[in-house]
C-alpha cells in the first residue's frame, strides 16, 4: 500500500510517516505545492493525506487536479483550520474525509484504513483478525463464525482497537472516537473503563483470539493472543 503525505510541517510529516511505516505502508512525502503536484500526476497512491495550507498554493487546488485525474476519492484532508467552507469544498471535490489538527495517530490510522478498505475490497467492508470478523457496515462481530451481539459503544471500541491492532491507543483518542467531542472535560476519561471491562469479558467468554490490554496511565492495546 502506497501513501503520500502532503504536509509542509516537516516534524508533523515525520511523525505521521513513522506511524504509517509501523503499519508497513510505503510512505512518500511532498512538502510544497509544486512537488506535490509532480507526484500526484506521475504516480498512483492508495491514499493521500493532504494539508490545505501549503507553500506555493492551496491544497484545494491539488484536490481539483486530482479530481480531473479521477483520483480524488482516496484523499484525506488534514487541516489546522476547522473551517466548514473548506470541509464542504474538499468533500465536494471528492475528498473522502476531513481531519482537523491536532488529531490522534490512532484516529488517522482508522481513517486511512477505512479509505483503503473501500478501495481494496470493493465495497466489502470487513476486517478479519485471528478468529474474529468485524463487519463495519452491518456493525456485527463474529467469533469463529458465531455472531456475538455488542452494544453500540462496545462495537465502536472494538473496531477502533482492531484497526489499531498492536498499537497503543490513547484513552483520550478512544473516548473522542467513541463518545464524541462532548466528553472533553470528563475527569481523565476513567469512565470509559466500564464499557471496556464488559467488552473484555464478552471476548474472553467467547474465546476470541484477541485481547485488550491496559497500558497504565496511557490507554489500551489490542493484541492477538
Amino acid at each position, binding site marked *: 500500500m502506497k501513501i503520500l503525505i502532503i504536509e509542509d510541517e516537516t516534524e508533523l510529516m515525520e511523525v505521521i510517516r513513522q*506511524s504509517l511505516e509501523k503499519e508497513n505502508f510505503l510512505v512518500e512525502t511532498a512538502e510544497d505545492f509544486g512537488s506535490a503536484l509532480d507526484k500526484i500526476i506521475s504516480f498512483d497512491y492508495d491514499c493521500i493525506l493532504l494539508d490545505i495550507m501549503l507553500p506555493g498554493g492551496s491544497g484545494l487546488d491539488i484536490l481539483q487536479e486530482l479530481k480531473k485525474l479521477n483520483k480524488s476519492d482516496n484523499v484525506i484532508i488534514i487541516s489546522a483550520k476547522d473551517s466548514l467552507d473548506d470541509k464542504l469544498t474538499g468533500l465536494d471535490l471528492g475528498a473522502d474525509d476531513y481531519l482537523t489538527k491536532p*488529531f490522534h495517530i490512532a484516529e488517522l490510522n482508522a481513517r486511512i484504513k477505512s479509505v483503503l478498505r473501500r478501495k481494496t475490497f470493493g465495497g466489502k467492508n470487513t476486517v478479519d483478525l485471528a478468529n474474529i470478523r468485524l463487519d463495519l457496515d452491518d456493525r456485527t462481530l463474529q467469533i469463529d463464525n458465531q455472531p456475538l451481539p455488542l452494544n453500540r*459503544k462496545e462495537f465502536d471500541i472494538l473496531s477502533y482497537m482492531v484497526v489499531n491492532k498492536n498499537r497503543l491507543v*490513547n484513552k483520550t483518542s478512544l473516548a473522542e472516537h467513541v*463518545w*464524541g467531542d462532548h466528553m472533553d472535560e470528563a*475527569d*481523565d476519561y476513567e*469512565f470509559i473503563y466500564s464499557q471496556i471491562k464488559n467488552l473484555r469479558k464478552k471476548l474472553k467468554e467467547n474465546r476470541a483470539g484477541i485481547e485488550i490490554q491496559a497500558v497504565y*496511565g496511557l490507554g489500551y492495546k489490542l493484541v492477538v493472543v
Partner: protein
Amino acid sequence: MKLLNHTLKYLSITLFVIISIWAAIFYINMLDEVYDSLDDGLENYKLLIIKKAEEDSSILNKKEFAESNYEIRQIPESVAVLRKDVHQDTLMYMLNEEDYEPVRMLTSAFALNNKFYELKVISSMVEEDDLIEDLLYSLIWLYVAMIASILIVNNFLLKKTWKPFYLLLDQLKQFKLGKDPIIAPAETQVKEFKELNEAVHLLLNRTLETYQGQKQFIENASHELQTPLAISINKLELLSEREDLTENNLVAIGQVIQTLERLKRLNKSLLLLSKIENKQFQDREQVNINATFKNLIDEFSDFADYKNVRISIQENGQLSANMNKDLAGIFITNFLKNAIVHNRENGTVEIIIEANAFTIHNSGTEIALNAEKIFERFHKKSNEKNNTGLGLAIVKAISDLYGLSVTYQFDEGHKMAVTF
C-alpha cells in the same frame, strides 16, 4: 439638564434683569410726563381763575376747596412778594374713595386791586400704588409670555434643528461592539452636526477595526497553535509505543499527553468562542431541543454512571428552536456537562422542558455561585484542572447570538433556566 433648558435658564435670568430695569425707567419717565402734564393743566387753571377773579370778585371769598378745586385766601403783601409758584404732592380726603388720596397742588400768589391773595389749585392725581401694581402685573404676564414662547420655540423649532444630534445619541446608546447595526447618521445641513457625524463615524470604524483585529487575532492564534500541538501529541504517542520504556516512563508520558490534551481543549474552546462571535455559524434550521437532549443524555450516560449521577428528563412541551444544529448541540452539551461535572456523589440532574424554555437543576455544592461571574471567561474554581473555564462563556456567546435568556438561580442546588 437638557441643552434646551440650559439656554432657557440663562435667557430667563437675562430677560428678568432687562425687563426689571426697563420697568423702572419706564415708570419714572411715565410719571415725569404725568406730572408735567398735570402741572401744565394747573398753571392754565390758575390763569383762568385769576382772569375770572378780575371779572367776578365773589370768587375771592372762596376760602375752601369744598366742591371745586381751588381756594383763595388773602395774604399780607410781605408774604406775597416772597411767594413763588410751588407744585407739590399732598393728600386730600376723597369722598368717593373714603380715604386720603394724593393730589397735585399748585400754590401761587397774585395781586388784585392792591390786595394780595394766595391761590391753591388742585388736581386729582395718579394713584401711584395702583399704577405700580398694574405695571407689575403687566410685566409678570409679559415675562411669563416671553418665557413660554421661548420654551415653545425651543421645543418645536430647536428640537427639530437638534434632531440629527438626538438621533445620533440614541444610536450611540444602543451601539454595542460586535453587534450588527452600525450607526447611520441622519442627513443634516448643520455644519457642526455634519462634523460630529463624521467624527463619530471615524471613531467607530477605528474601534471596530481594532475589535475585529483582536477577534481575528484570537482565531488566528488558536489556528497557529493547532499544528505544534498536533506534533507534540503525536510525537508522544509514537514515543509511548517504544518497547524499551519502563512503566514510570509511560506514566510520565501519559501525564504530559493529558496536559497537552488540556491545552488542546482550551484552544478548541477559544477557537469555538471566536467563531461564534465572528458569526461563522450561519446555517440555521429548526432544531428539536427535546430530541437533542435525549440524544446527549444517552451520550453522557457512561460518564454519569461513572460519577454516580442520575439524569432525569421531564417533557412538559415540545421545544424547537431556529438555530445552528452544531451550536444547539454544543449549547446543551455544555449545560449537561456542567451539571454532571459539578455534581456530588449520588447526585441528580433534573431537566424540565417546556414549550418555550428549559431548566436544568443539579444537586451540586451547597454554596450558591456568583451569578454575575459564572458566564465570564476563565471564571472557575482553581481545583478543577479539567475545566477550561470557557463552557459557560460559550453558552453565553450562543445565547447572545440567538437572543436567548439564560439565568442562574440557587434553589437547593444549581438551576439554569433558558428561555427561547
